[in-house]
């Protein structure tokens, strides 16, 4: 995605990522994944097999002309296109991601569509953009009628989820998670930084970043997709361990632990790909709250439990069937 030369420098880039498990009994191989993610006939799907299987859809565009949410209630109308794409990691974790960037200032009146179409993923404000208030506004979420990136991301995810390739028999129950991000320019000479990473509501995370001027929004989106993927893994395995597994023993515990071992544990691979400069931001999250530290701990808990289950004398334990399970 190269910007036309006349585009003013970016002062704000924002996005939202939705993450869920692929509703399919088996993970998709690269061919099937490429078929699933062929969102456009005229562009190829990107398939990468090292260090793990990662398939990225072509970018699609959604045209918008609406108000941008702002923290201080300032009325900002933006026109242009939001970029949307979907990715599948190891044939198992499905993500959709919507993002845009915007210059500090735009024309006072709306231009013909052709003007916006040659600037994919750019939203131009009518007038001046209060970038800090807009960043906070996007992270907090808009009111009805304002730009909703999550809705745009969902618009790509929903048809994918009901694709004929998928049998709707996911190996485990889990929730969709949402991660919103907003990136403002770093001070000249400064590297990228994470200013804030919050676990807001149940399934919502927000990230506020600073990035060096000229950083491609697609690269920031990729970094945040990586965050979202690993946050989803943590969230899902924590729920698996803290949910009905707590005091349960016997075959039921095994049934509940199995999907984690078979489908999730090998997926942990932070900074597998993406922009080198931005990848450094992982160090921040590794230090505090310590993503990998928590993951290692969870994996150890799962393994210890399995070892215990194995060591305990095998007794037939009658357990009621769980909903949706064939007995």
């Amino acid at each position: 995605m190269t910007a036309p030369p006349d585009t003013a420098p970016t002062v704000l880039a924002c996005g939202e990522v939705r993450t869920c498990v692929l509703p399919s009994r088996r993970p998709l191989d690269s061919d099937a994944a490429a078929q699933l993610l062929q969102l456009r006939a005229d562009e190829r799907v990107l398939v990468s097999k090292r260090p793990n299987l990662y398939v990225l859809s072509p970018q699609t565009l959604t045209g918008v002309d609406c108000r941008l949410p702002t923290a201080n209630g300032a009325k900002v109308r933006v026109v242009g296109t939001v970029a949307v794409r979907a990715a599948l990691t190891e044939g198992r974790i499905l993500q959709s991601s919507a993002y845009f960037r915007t210059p500090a200032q735009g024309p006072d009146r709306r231009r013909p569509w052709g003007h916006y179409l040659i600037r994919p993923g750019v939203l131009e404000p009518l007038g001046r953009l209060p970038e800090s208030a807009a960043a906070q506004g996007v992270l907090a979420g808009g009111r009805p009628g304002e730009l909703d990136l999550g809705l745009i991301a969902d618009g790509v995810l929903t048809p994918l989820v009901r694709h004929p390739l998928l049998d709707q028999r996911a190996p485990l129950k889990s929730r969709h998670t949402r991660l919103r991000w907003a990136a403002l320019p770093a001070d000249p000479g400064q590297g990228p930084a994470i200013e804030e990473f919050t676990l807001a509501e149940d399934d919502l995370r927000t990230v506020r970043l600073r990035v060096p001027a000229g950083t491609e929004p697609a690269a920031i989106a990729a970094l945040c997709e990586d965050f979202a993927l690993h946050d989803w893994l943590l969230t899902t395995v924590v729920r698996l361990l803290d949910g009905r597994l707590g005091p349960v023993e016997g075959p039921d515990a095994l049934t509940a632990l199995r999907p984690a071992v078979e489908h999730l544990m090998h997926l942990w691979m932070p900074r597998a790909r993406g922009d080198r400069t931005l990848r450094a931001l992982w160090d921040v999250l590794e230090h505090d709250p310590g993503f990998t530290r928590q993951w290692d701990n969870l994996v150890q808990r799962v393994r210890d439990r399995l070892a215990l289950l194995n060591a305990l004398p095998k007794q037939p334990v009658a357990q009621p069937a769980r909903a949706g399970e064939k007995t």
Partner: protein
Amino acid sequence: MIVFAASDKGGTGRSVTSANLAYQRALAGDDVVYVDFDFGSPTAPAVFDVPDMQRGIENGGLHSYLEGTAPEPARIDVWRRTEHPVLRRTPIGAGRLVLLPGDASGGEFVTDQDSVHRCVDLLLRLNAEFDLILVDLSAGRSYAMDMVLEATAGRELQQVVSRWVVFHRWTRQHVIAAAGLVFAERGLLEGGAERGHDKDALRSVIRFVRAAVPDPDSALWSHLSPAQFAWMQMYDEKLRRLAAELGVGDSVLLGTVPLEPILQWREQLITEEEVVATQIANKETLDAMEAIARRLTEDTHWGQP
């Protein structure tokens, strides 16, 4: 698994019983979502004791979602939002219990192809997340019923286990009405077949629950005269025969909820507290709820080995 709760008439205890079933499954550790498709008279928030929305949510509920004006229907975490004193202490080991309410201002509405698509998307999404989806449908052959019949006939939901529970009271009229809802011309089976369901397959996933059934042997009726007692027993037997003749007999019975005085006064959840501590509800009622909740997923009760 999706369980659709249907009834021919109102006042059959469909909503209150299915809310109790949802509660029992969540207690047992399942993640449960209760979807209020009773568009005519949404009562679920009242049964779960969720304040400020006794007749549904102000906006952004299921009506708005299905009509396309809300991107996602509002969700209510029952453990967190309820004012029921017992429910507020989320029991250890319990799964999630989430309510998707209707809109307070909504009523029955004509569904179109778009709402069927949205219904499919919603059920797929919930199925990915929850162990049990309990869908409470309006009484009778409603738009809601047609919509879910069409939604479940499609390719997308074919791999998702769906079951139907039809609630009726234990009287002659209610037995006839329940049978009619399922077997009559323009009934559930025919409506399903019109939308692409296999009639036999659909029939095999329908079971009946008898609600508010007086048990002549219970203490509640100990004051009956011998003549009354004999009459009740005779009539009970007669109803059984009628039910069997109409195809709603014991072979397709999922369970029986005894007549419970407190449910005659107030639609509510029956908890251990009401039975053990305050003793205002009967243990038989709680036992019945637990048993039916368990049977929802026990294949032996659904004609499968």
